[in-house]
C-alpha cells in the first residue's frame, strides 16, 4: 500500500495487515482483529454459553495467533488458521473444566422406538420457513453440551466429520450420530417453542 492510499484513509487489506503486523504495527493488529472477531467470539460463545468465558477465550485465541504471525507464510487462508486455533482454545478450556465435549460412542442403532410417531389425525407441525436466528440460537443454547459441540462445529462452523473427530477425539461415526441427534433435538425444541408462542 502506498503512502498516498494510506493518507486517503483506505483500509488495509488482510494481506497488507498481516505483513505490517509482523513489523509490530498496532493498527495492523487491530485490522486483523476487527476482521475476524465476530466469528471467533460467536464460536466461543456458542460452545461455552458464557459471555465472560467467550471473551476470555477470544482474547486467548487472538493472542496465540498473533504470537505466531511471524511464521505465517500465507499459503493457507489466515481465517482458516485463526479459526482452527479458536476451536482448539475452546476445546482445551472445556477439557480443563472437565466439561463433556462429546458423549462416549453412541449410535442410533440402539434406539428402536424411533423419533417418528404417527398419530392418526395429528397435524403435521413442520418447521419449514419458521426458523429465525434468535429462536435457533436459544434452541442451540438448550442442547446438551456434547450435541451442541458437534452441531456448532459441523452445521454452524462448517467442519467435516473427519475434522471434528480429530479435534474432539471421537470417531467419525460418533460425530455423525451426535450431529443427527442434535438436529432432532433442535427440531423438538423449536416445535415446542412455536407451540408455546401459538398458545400465548
Amino acid at each position, binding site marked *: 500500500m502506498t503512502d498516498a492510499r494510506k493518507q486517503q484513509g483506505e483500509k488495509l487489506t488482510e494481506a497488507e495487515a498481516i505483513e505490517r503486523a509482523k513489523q*509490530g*504495527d498496532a493498527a495492523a*493488529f487491530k485490522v486483523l482483529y476487527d476482521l475476524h472477531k465476530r466469528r471467533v467470539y460467536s464460536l466461543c460463545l456458542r460452545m461455552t454459553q458464557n459471555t465472560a468465558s467467550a471473551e476470555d477465550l477470544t482474547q486467548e485465541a487472538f493472542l496465540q495467533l498473533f*504470537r505466531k504471525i511471524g511464521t505465517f507464510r500465507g499459503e493457507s487462508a489466515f481465517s482458516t488458521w485463526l479459526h482452527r486455533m479458536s476451536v482448539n482454545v475452546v476445546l482445551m478450556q472445556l477439557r480443563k473444566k472437565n466439561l463433556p465435549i462429546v458423549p462416549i460412542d453412541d449410535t442410533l442403532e440402539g434406539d428402536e422406538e424411533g423419533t417418528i410417531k404417527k398419530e392418526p389425525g395429528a397435524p403435521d407441525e413442520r418447521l*419449514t420457513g419458521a426458523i429465525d436466528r434468535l429462536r435457533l440460537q436459544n434452541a442451540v443454547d438448550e442442547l446438551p453440551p456434547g450435541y451442541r459441540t458437534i452441531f456448532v462445529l459441523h*452445521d454452524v462452523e462448517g467442519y467435516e466429520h473427519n475434522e471434528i473427530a480429530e479435534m474432539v477425539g471421537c470417531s467419525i461415526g460418533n460425530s455423525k450420530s451426535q450431529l443427527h441427534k442434535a438436529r432432532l433435538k433442535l*427440531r423438538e425444541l*423449536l416445535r415446542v417453542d412455536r407451540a408455546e408462542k401459538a398458545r400465548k
Partner: protein
Amino acid sequence: MTCLEFERDLPECVEGKPSPEQQAHLNSCPTCSGLLLDLNSIASQAKMLSAAEEPSAAVWNALEERLRSEGLIRSQPVYLPAEVKPSFMQRWRAAWLVPVAAALVAVAVVKLYHPANIGDNSPVAKQAQPAAPAAVVKNASAKRKPALSHEDQQWLDTVAARPPAQLAKFRTDLDQANAFIEDAQQSLQQDPNDVYMQQMLMNAYEQKQMLYELVVDDSSH
C-alpha cells in the same frame, strides 16, 4: 420401506441424496418428508449463527495490552523490504560468499588441471585462488570459535590429510559458519518471530552443508 427403516438411514439422507427406495418412501409419507425438510432447514439455517455476536471493547483493550507487554506491538514499527537488513546482510554476504566462492574456485581449478593434487603448489592452482578475504571478513566472526559438534569433528577428520594451508582454510570457513549459525540462533532466542533471522539461519545451515559437500565431492574423485 417403513418409517422406522427410513429413520435409521436418515443421517445419510440429510447430508446426501435420498436413494430411490428412500425417495419412494418420502413421496408416500408426509411425516417422514416433513421430518427430512425440517432437518435440512435446521442444518442450512445454522450458518446464520456464525459471526452473529460481537465481543465487548474490553477484549481488544486487554489484547492490545498483552501484545505491547510481549513486544509484539512496537512503538516504532520497522518497515523494511524483505531482503534487506543492512548490517547483518553486509556482514554475512562479505563473510560468507568470499571464502565459499574461493573454496569453490580453488576446488574447481584443482579438479580441472590437477585432479590428483589437491591444494598443491602448482602455478595454476595458486593462480586460481582468490586473494585473502578483506579485513572486514576477518573481523566479522573469525575471532570467535564456537565449539565443534561431533559431525564437524568427523568432517575435519576427513580432511586431516590435506595440506596444512588448505586444512586451515577449511577450519576457518567452518568456524565462520558455526559463528553465523550461533548469531542467528541467539537473535531468534530474543525474537522468535524474526522472519529475517529465520531465513538467515536457514541460509547459514545451507552454506555449511555446501562446505561439507565440497569436501565429500572432492574426496570422491
